[in-house]
């Protein structure tokens, strides 16, 4: 048998190649099983980039569903809380050009806000508690509610259900701890020997 193969170069090559094919095919098959990736890692990465306000302004019930939708080819400019920074980051990740924020879904807020319940006016209906996606509102039926400001993502979802309109979205005050140096003015596109830019 081996002698016949050795004497027939074509047969030998065939056997060798098929043998190698089977060997590496087996290896690859084994690796595919052994190192199987659970779930879609791109969804995880997209979810990491989204701001996690869970506000639903994109039309999906939370950030993760939107991340899944982006992974399936949805537009990446539907997230107003994330704004242009998030769009840029996602565009960078997916290697696509970064579009402008889709105005249909809302505008990028200038300042971060948190919900504040005017406690005197609260009737204790618990509607806002049910609406809060991150359980940041404390209270019980017929008892006053209040917002845990540190947990609030500023998603607005509690404002609408309130029957007495006692919830305000207040801007987060920036203290000395949050302050950081502003960017210096950008350099003028002129060389030193040329005329000076207008100040």
């Amino acid at each position: 048998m081996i002698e016949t193969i050795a004497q027939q170069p074509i047969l030998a090559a065939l056997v060798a190649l098929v043998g190698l094919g089977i060997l590496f095919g087996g290896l690859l098959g084994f690796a595919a099983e052994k190192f199987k990736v659970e779930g879609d890692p791109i969804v995880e990465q997209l979810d990491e980039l989204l701001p996690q306000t869970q506000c639903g302004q994109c039309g999906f019930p939370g950030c993760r569903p939107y991340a899944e939708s982006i992974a399936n080819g949805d537009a990446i400019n539907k997230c107003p809380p994330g704004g242009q920074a998030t769009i840029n980051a996602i565009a960078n990740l997916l290697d696509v050009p970064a579009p402008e924020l889709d105005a249909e879904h809302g505008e990028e807020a200038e300042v971060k806000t948190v919900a504040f319940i005017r406690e005197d006016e609260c009737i204790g209906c618990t509607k806002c508690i049910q609406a809060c996606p991150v359980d940041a509102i404390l209270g019980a039926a017929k008892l006053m509610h209040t917002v845990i400001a540190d947990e609030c993502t500023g998603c607005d979802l509690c404002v609408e259900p309130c029957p007495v309109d006692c919830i305000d979205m207040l801007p987060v005050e920036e203290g000395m701890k949050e302050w950081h140096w502003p960017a210096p003015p950008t350099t003028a596109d002129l060389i030193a020997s040329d005329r000076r830019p207008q100040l």
Partner: protein
Amino acid sequence: MKTWVTPGGVHPPENKHQSLTLPIGTLPIPETLVIPLSQHIGAGATPCVEVGAKVLKGQKIADAAGMFSVPMHAPTSGTISAIEHRPVAHSSGMLAPCIEITSDGRDEWIKHQGFADIENATAKALLQAISDAGIAGMGGAGFPTAVKLNPGYRRPINSLIVNATECEPYITADDSAIRERAAEIVEGIGILSQILGHPSNIMIGIEANKPEAIAALAPHVVDSGISVVSFPTKYPSGGEKQLIYILTGQEIPSGELPADIGVVCVNIGTTYAIKRAIVDGEPLISRVTTMTGDACGINRNYDTLIGTPVSHMLANSEFQEEACSRLVMGGPMMGFSLTSADVPIVKTTNCILAPSYEEIPDDEPAQPCIRCGMCAEACPVSLLPQQLFWYSQAQDHERLEAHNLFDCIECGACSYVCPSNIPLVQHYRHSKGEIQKARADKVKSDHARERFEFHQQRIEQAEKDKEAKRAARREAAESAKAKAADASNKAAGDADKPAANSAADIIAAAQARAAAKKVSPEQQQAKFERSIAGAEMRLQMAKEKLADADASQTEEQKNILSAAVEGARQKLEQAQLRLQEHINAHSQTKNGEQVD
């Protein structure tokens, strides 16, 4: 002694001689002093006095808020006139909580005394005393000294380095303090050494441009185990990490502290404050501050009370406002411009610089980077400033971190040498702030995601629980019915009927029920009789109630009660009627059977 040479560095004009012509002076006590509650790194202190309270010099006016904080003391005697937000020395120009003291001019000390027996005092007691005296690093960062001296679980400390470098131009606070207070400084170093368990290596690092100070120290360090090490002048040699490298040749790894390589580095001003606190029992209420610049007629060092407004200092130094280009707190390299002269001197203020327009002209407009590489040569931390500038403009946080932006000590050497006048340090500070903000946002958004996922899970669980309860109730109802049917089967003596035990056997159970109804007229009759008995009883009770109520109740209530009596009577009649019908029907069936 061998010293090492740091990479990079610059040699700006020193301008130190102006403020060294006069000895350390004192200012008249200002009318009001403003003491910011946060003059150090860490949590701000909590006021422990009320507005209107009388305080003596050295009395504690604010408690340390936790381990990583220091208390504040009244710099002079007087009355607390306000506790409110005031402008403070911060680059943001924001207001911060402050205590204002209106001085009474008597400058009366509170009763105080130092340690009786320092040599036998424990390190813990000494550290507590240092913390209680409100001492935070006086070199610039304001790190609470007691925390620094207590590295705890870290490696044992084998080197104590006292930083007398004072490499920044114009500033002479440490220089003049050494000239006049060398004995006390060395005493303070002795206390530090005792706290740290007598490290084998105690060095005072000082630049060679201060020969008078070196000479002043020399007689006091003889036989004390302290070596005064001088090295060539270069900016920035006074950074903690730079000085440690110059004196020991050891580099501190990125992100670690000097204590991690067994070194503690303290400013020389701090050692003086420690001596005052331990030996004399005086808290930190004053410091040496340089007042200099061509816009001031008098250039000298002052022993300034903490909380003295900068304007008070200027007023006593022949300040010409129109000649001054800007007011700088700190030196020309690392200091920051003040937005107002009302801000107070704090524990970390080593210099007030009031330069003329010739000394520090207004910033030239920045030109584009020409990639000359001079900044890279000047950088004392061997970073690539031009690359950092590039990525900073592009807001490429990932690359900035990869290029070790956070190892930048913001010394300003790169901006100093830049031929295009690019404010490089400001770009780095901005980017550092942005990155830190992004990190904080990331932590927050991860937290929000966790809470959202938990919220979802909880709602799903609640839904499942509800569903399970509903199913359980349905099952319970069915099995109860089946049981009832089973029981009636037995009562009817129908042993042939199979018991409907399983829930699946619904049809069988239904049949059984139907059969049970059919074959148990006696039971039915008993049930009717029971209901009649119940109705009778209710009627009786309603009647009694009506009888009791007659006297005291109003007309309306009586009506309700009599309506109840009427209702009960009707029910009884109905029940009786049903029983009668049943009996009739049953007897007919019986008759029928008999006929058959």
